[in-house]
């Protein structure tokens, strides 16, 4: 009797002391793709790789529960609030530059107008600008040029009356090309600034 009481107490401590049950559900991302997630405890792991796959964890010492399929009603009830407040997808734009300069290619002037209009329509919370270069030239030169391109776009958007609460400006140098090339290759599609309007 006492032994079973102790065992019960031990189980309660092991399972219960750790707080609530944790539920994890895999769902398609906004593009409709389903990735995969591995849920790991000291007791084992479970792989979620199909839409609606769900597992639950009660204790760090036990393996997560066998994978089941989450019901739509359960998801709506438990995740309605979090799903309703998901940030809407941002709008993305790309501006292209003449080689080695912060001079915009002529077609990009119209894109500047579109960025300003989008920021006003959305009452943008944030605008992120990253400057980029192709791989011709030294790392230092490209880091500086990418920074100058991003700073130029920042000034231009401000002058044109873009609306935002915050703005972030970064230089990716030649390290994050739109079109991967060997080093030392002049590639117009990589001489760019990417602008994300949130």
């Amino acid at each position: 009797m006492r032994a079973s009481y102790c065992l019960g107490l031990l189980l309660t401590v092991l399972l219960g002391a750790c707080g609530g049950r944790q539920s994890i559900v895999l769902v398609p991302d906004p593009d409709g793709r389903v990735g995969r997630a591995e849920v790991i405890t000291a007791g084992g792991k479970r792989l979620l790789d199909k839409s609606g796959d769900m597992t639950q964890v009660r204790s760090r010492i036990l393996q997560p529960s066998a994978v089941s399929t989450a019901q739509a009603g359960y998801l709506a009830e438990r995740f309605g609030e979090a799903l309703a407040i998901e940030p809407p997808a941002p709008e993305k734009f790309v501006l292209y530059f003449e080689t080695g300069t912060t001079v915009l290619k002529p077609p990009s002037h119209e894109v500047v107008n579109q960025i300003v209009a989008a920021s006003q329509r959305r009452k943008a919370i944030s605008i992120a600008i990253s400057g980029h270069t192709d791989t011709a030239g030294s790392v230092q030169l490209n880091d500086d040029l990418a920074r100058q391109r991003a700073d130029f776009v920042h000034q231009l958007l401000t002058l044109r009356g873009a609306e935002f609460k915050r703005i972030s400006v970064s230089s990716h140098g030649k390290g994050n090309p739109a079109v991967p090339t060997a080093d030392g290759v002049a590639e117009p599609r990589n001489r760019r600034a990417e602008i994300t309007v949130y």
Partner: protein
Amino acid sequence: MKLLFCIVLLLMLPAISTAAGEAAVVGHIQTLQGSVWIERGALRLGGEAGSEVRQGDILRTGKPGAVGLVLLDNTTVSLGSGSELVVRDYAFQPREGKFTLVMQMLKGSFSYVSGLIGKLAPDAIRLQLPEATIAVRGTKLLVEIGD
């Protein structure tokens, strides 16, 4: 004398490290409803659209309260009522090829949608729950931590 100097230096250390060590911005609040706040050390800041979120901040929602967070790489996380989240470790540095995302989901309900780090370095992402760790590759996940 040397000892005194060392003691003074030791006493100054916290001040020096605070001045030099302001945590990096990892993202911003994009959407919110009800009560939302950010705890940064001893500071407790009311959250609003556009508020910066820094590494190590505790992002909390009240009841009712809900918030949508966008990280620098476009990872998004939204929280329902009574939730608590910390971005514990974050690096998004495409120029150097450095990517890390470690988030602690402490309580409440969450919707997580992976961003660029999920595409560029899927093995760099860990979601830490009270009793489990999730290694997530490029997808959307719903997580609930019961009371």
